[in-house]
Structure formats: structure tokens, C-alpha cells
């Protein structure tokens, strides 16, 4: 077990390097000069000076090494647009994104697991059919569209909830902030909910059809004890899927954040793309991808830990 964790940790290292390479390369795919895009028609000598100060005149491998070195020491540079430290921008944005991600996970996973369990147990009934159909709808859902639907229904038509923004409350735990989070949370939870429901249903059905369940029944075990067995056996798979979905929520929330003008990493990314604000762009993508890598690492370890088939020494 320990050895597995160690090798998994070691394996993460080259992946992280690869990710940083891609992030670096992405930015240099961009046509044109990052600075002239930001600064427009200004004095050429001034641009040259700026290029030198940002290091954009150095050869690419050297730029990469320099960048990697500063990233490793937690230094993500400064926004070309506002001059604010990228790390600072990202920290507050990340807090907002994580808040939404956690809420959406809680909602999506609990509903998804419950629906999936019911559907799996009542396989073939109308309940199962409703769940399966909703799940298919959920995975096919353009979630940014769902966001608009929610805004139309709850804000425009019924005027119940605010349509955009995060509110002006200073604390994230106030009622006002919470109200602002309800719609984005629901919009974001659709896909994870559907996927978790499908996975849970499939797992439960597969386990229930296995011989050992028959054997347990034959031994006169109560249904609740059998459910316990089913849960234990479904856990690793469902856990893995949940982890992946959580990571996706953090990295893939850009579209929904755009709809709700939610001040998270997605909005920062969106803004940076249109400003061609290279340091912010690099920093955001890197942060989100690293989030994803680390989450995957944690899931893998958790999954090994939860899997009854893997022996633990």
C-alpha cells in the first residue's frame, strides 16, 4: 500500500512537468506578441524595453526554465493588465470556485447516489426508467444552457433569486452570498449528478447480480446488511467517478461562471483570454490543471484504500 502511494506520487511528478510544458507551450502558440496586444499602438522602444523586462526576448527553453523556476517558488508573475500579482488574483478567485465546486458536489453526489441506488435496486421499474432517462438528459445537458434556464425561471419569471454576481456581502457564509450560489450550484451539479447516478446504478445492478449476494441472501442476511455489502463493493468505483467529477467541477466551471458572472477562476480565465493577459492566463490554467492532477492523485489513493479486493499490508 505504502509502496503504491509512493510510486503514485512519483508518477505524478512527470505528469506535472508535462502539464507545465503544455501550459507554457499553449501561451506561445498564440499569434502575435503578447505585449503589443495589450499595449496597442505605443512607442516601439518602450515595447522593446517591456519585452526585456518580462523576459520575452529570451529563447523559449530559457523562458520556460525561468518560468518553471519562479512557479516552483510560488511566483506566478504580475498581470499585464492590472499589475496585480497573479497569485493574489487567483487565490480569491479559487476560493469562490472551490465554494461552488464543493456545494455542487454535495448536491450532485447525494442526489446522484440516492437516485442511482434506487434505480439499481428497482431495476426495470418506472422509477428506474425515470432515473435512467434523467441521467441521460443530465450527461447530454449543455450546463451553460441549464444555467440560463434557471436564471429565466427563478430570476426573470419568479424573481426569487439573484441572476448574477456574488453579492456584496463581505463573508461567503452570509445569506446573501448563499442566495447567489444557489443557481450556479444547481447548474453545475447536473452533470456530476447524472454521471454519479449512472455509475451507481450500474454498480449496484452488477453487484446484485453476482453470486455472493445470492449466497448472503441464502444465509438469511437482512436486506440492510446486504445493502451494506453492496455499498462496500460499489464504493471504489463510485468514489473514483466522484473524484473525477469534483476535479472537473473545479477545472471546467468556466462556462457556468461566465453565465452568472461568478468571480471565480473561470471568470478570471475568460477575462485573461480576451485581454491576452499572458501571466494570468498561464497561472490560471496551471493552477486548474494542477488541481486536477492532485485530485486525481488523492482519488487513486482513496480508491486503493477503499477497494476490498486490494489487500492492504
Amino acid at each position, binding site marked *: 500500500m505504502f509502496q503504491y502511494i509512493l*510510486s503514485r506520487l*512519483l*508518477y505524478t511528478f*512527470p505528469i506535472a512537468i508535462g502539464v507545465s510544458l503544455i501550459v507554457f507551450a499553449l501561451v506561445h502558440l498564440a499569434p502575435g506578441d503578447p505585449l503589443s496586444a495589450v499595449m496597442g499602438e505605443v512607442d516601439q522602444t518602450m515595447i522593446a524595453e517591456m519585452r526585456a523586462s518580462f523576459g520575452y526576448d529570451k529563447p523559449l527553453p530559457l523562458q520556460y526554465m525561468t518560468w518553471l523556476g519562479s512557479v516552483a517558488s510560488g511566483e506566478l508573475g504580475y498581470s499585464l493588465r492590472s499589475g496585480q500579482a497573479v497569485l493574489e488574483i487567483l487565490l480569491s478567485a479559487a476560493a469562490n470556485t472551490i465554494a461552488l465546486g464543493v456545494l455542487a458536489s454535495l448536491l450532485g453526489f447525494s442526489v446522484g447516489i440516492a437516485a442511482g441506488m434506487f434505480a439499481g435496486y428497482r431495476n426495470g421499474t418506472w422509477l428506474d426508467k425515470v432515473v435512467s432517462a434523467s441521467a441521460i438528459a443530465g450527461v447530454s445537458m449543455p450546463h451553460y444552457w441549464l444555467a440560463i434556464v434557471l436564471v429565466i425561471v427563478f430570476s426573470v419569471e419568479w424573481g426569487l433569486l439573484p441572476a448574477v454576481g456574488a453579492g456584496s456581502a463581505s463573508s461567503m457564509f452570509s445569506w446573501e452570498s448563499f442566495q447567489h450560489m444557489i443557481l450556479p450550484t444547481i447548474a453545475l451539479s447536473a452533470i456530476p449528478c447524472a454521471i454519479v447516478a449512472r455509475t451507481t446504478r450500474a454498480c449496484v445492478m452488477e453487484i446484485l447480480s453476482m453470486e455472493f449476494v445470492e449466497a448472503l441472501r441464502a444465509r438469511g442476511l437482512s436486506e440492510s446488511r446486504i445493502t451494506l455489502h453492496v455499498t462496500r463493493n460499489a464504493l471504489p468505483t463510485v468514489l473514483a467517478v466522484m473524484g473525477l467529477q469534483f476535479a472537473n467541477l473545479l477545472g471546467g466551471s468556466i462556462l457556468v461562471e461566465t453565465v452568472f458572472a461568478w468571480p471565480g477562476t473561470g471568470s478570471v480565465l475568460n477575462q485573461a483570454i480576451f485581454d491576452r493577459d499572458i501571466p494570468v492566463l498561464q497561472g490560471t490554467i496551471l493552477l486548474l490543471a494542477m488541481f486536477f492532477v492532485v485530485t486525481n492523485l488523492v482519488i487513486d489513493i482513496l480508491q486503493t484504500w477503499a477497494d476490498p479486493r486490494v489487500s492492504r499490508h
Partner: protein
Amino acid sequence: MTAAAPHILSVQRLQKYFPVRSGLLGRASAWVQAVDDVSFEIAAGETLGVVGESGCGKSTTGRLLMRLIEPDAGQIRFEGKLVGRDLKVSDLRRSMQMVFQDSYASLNPRLAVADSIAFGPQTHGMPRERAIGRARELLGMVGLEPSQFERRYPHELSGGQRQRVNFARALALDPKLIILDEAVSALDKSVEAQVLNLLVELKKNLGLTYLFISHDLNVVQYVSDRVLVMYLGKVAEVGPVDAIYGAPQHPYTRALLDSRPSMDPEIRVEHPPLTGDPPNPINPPSGCRFRTRCPHAEAVCQTQEPDLRPAHGAPGHLVACHMRRAGSGHSQAAPLVRFGDREPSR
């Protein structure tokens, strides 16, 4: 066997170590000594049985002969021609074919039976029409009515029928030698007998030579002219079937024979039966690889590896055991026979 029969296949010092990869870079951290220094010959027209416990390297030997995996070392001569130098691997594969244990996995599930059989000839340039015709002919030869079977898919056949199709495919290129790797092991006893009879008949009619791999000693006894006993990648003993079954020289062969269910209460438990699992082929025991399970193991068995030497009795009977080698230092070995001495009588 007559010693004068020309060898269709001769194998010298064949070796294959599989790397055990681990770590990030996938470097080999250890080696499975699957086949180690294996030499033997097969005479044209005979059936050489190969027996041994699971994992002793029987299949690997077969695949090495077919060059499905590359040997690390060793020479293979087919009809006297050195494979790789005098004989191209592609030509070898026309003259030598292989039938695998899992009749289902050895047929492409998406191809009709006739197409599977015709694939080989088509590969060698036979037009499709003729190749299918040939496939039909072969189906008939293996006892499957062509009109009824040619368009079937593997899942529409029983295990025995599938294995017959596999024989037909192996025969499609007119090979001289066929390697049968556990070809009947997965079949029910009654079916096994029918298929074995088919094999014997085909061999007789087509003048084939078989390398018959199996862990079933009774089956091997039934079909083989000579038998080769493998243990952990090495040849323990090889010789005429009657000598191996009637007067086994290697303690491992004896243990194998004793551990098979016998109908005859006379021949029972003179020697302790084989117990425990074979050791790990990654780090096989030093000296004689069988010593960890051998009731006769002595100091010499740990330090020196016994090589394959003629045993007393039948000509062509070879054994790798210190007990059978005069002057080896084993307490049960005969004293060294010096020049001029008479052969010691035991």
C-alpha cells in the same frame, strides 16, 4: 525410435528470460527464467510429448520455436537449416504451425470459420476463391461438414468443434510439424478422446510430426513416441515413452508419475508424491532447480547444476540428475568409471 531417423527439428541451448519491469521507466528489475538452456531434437514423423507443471516454460518453448517471441539465445534448425540464416522465419512458419489451448481465443470472433482458415493461404498469395475452397476441404478433413460449418462464427461452435477448426487452420499451409500446446486440455474427457483420435489419424494420413505439449501424463503417454520432461525452464529428462513411464530416472519425473491418479494399486506410493508449488522462476534455486523439492537432494545438488546425460537403459534416454551421473559426488551416484573398468552393475 530408430536413431537413424533424420531430425526434422533440432534445438540447441534455447534460452528466454522475460524482463520483470517495474518503476517509472519500466526498466527490467528481474528476469523470469522461462526457458533456460533447452536442447532437444524431434525426428521426422514422431510425436514428442512435453510435460511439466504449470509455468515450467512449455508454452514459451513452443512460441520460441514458432518465433512468436524472439529467443535470447540458442539455435533452431529445421531440416538441418539454421533458422534465421539458412531458413527465413517466414518460410519456417509455413512448415511449422501451432495450435493453442484456448480454442475460443485462438479464433477471430468476427470472422467466419472458413475465412479464419483461408487467411493463411491468402496471406501467401492464394486467391480468395481458392483459399475458401481449400478451407472447405480442410473442414472436411477435420470432420466438420463444410456446408454446415463454413459460414459459422466461433461462438456458434462447441469447444471440440472450435479446436477442430484450429487444426484445420494449422493444416492450411501444409506444414510438416505442428506444435500442439495443450490442444486438448480444455476439452471434456469424451470430446478429448475423439479429438485425440482425429490428431492421430491426421498425423498418419498427412505424414506429420507433432510436438505435443500437455500437463496430462496419460494423454502424453497415449500419443507420444518420446517424452520430454521440463522443470522450471530446464529439461529434466527426455527419452522414449516406455522408458520415461516405465523406468523414470529423474526424481521429478517419478514424482509426477506418482502424483497422477492411477488405476493400478500395484504402482503406488513408493516415492513421496510431489508437494508444494514450484519455486519462483525469477530466482530459481542454485545447482539443481529441483533440489528444493527433491527427496534425494544433497550438497552437490546445491552447488552444481546437473547436465543432461545419457541414462542407463534405453538408447536416447537422457536425464539431468546427479544421482544418475557416475562420480558426481552424490551418495547414490555410481563411482566414477575409469577407462578400462567394467560398467558397474546396479
